[in-house]
């Protein structure tokens, strides 16, 4: 009958995009380390 997909560690009701903290296909944990950010060049 398949898997209860809510047990795969992804918050499927999250209002935010999941990809920002998607750690790995093998883990239930969100990604560690600095999330992706970018600074406009005029800030330098």
């Amino acid at each position: 009958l398949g898997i209860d997909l809510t047990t795969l560690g992804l918050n499927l009701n999250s209002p935010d995009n999941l990809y920002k903290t998607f750690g790995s296909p093998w883990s239930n944990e969100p990604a560690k380390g600095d999330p992706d950010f970018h600074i406009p060049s005029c800030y330098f």
Partner: protein
Amino acid sequence: DLGAIGDNLTGTSASSGHDQLYNLQMLEAAFHKLPQPKDSERAKNYVPRHPAVTPASYPQIQAPIVSNPTFWERIGSDTLATDMLFFAFYYQQNTYQQYLAAKELKKQSWRFHRRYNTWFQRHVEPQVTTDEYERGSYVYFDFHVTDDGSGWCQRIKNDFTFEYNYLE
């Protein structure tokens, strides 16, 4: 046997081609050499621009909390707190801290002027607003040199025109 599982079982036994068996063996081997979380972690390569030797009792690495967005969101909007944001913005360039400080400044209604490289905040509602610009009195954060020395301070600019094509 009218549905999915039944029908296809018959076909499978005849379809264990060498390549499928080989692929499964290779997959099995890879199963024991999964990428580890540390394989993806970027070395915290925060390299101080001008490293200075400090007593060993001083913290030698950045406190993790400065990488936590919540820490920056909690910084208030009084002058001292805002100065902290400006410090991170101007003195920790190209780091996650600068990114978080800029985000917080924008949340506190500061706007970055790309030509003057300066943050402005409306002091009062602008007198004129068009699609291209707005004009009025603004507070701005500036490095200021006076006869009694220099330093950062907030000043007021009246009758300033903020052209939107300079808005970051």
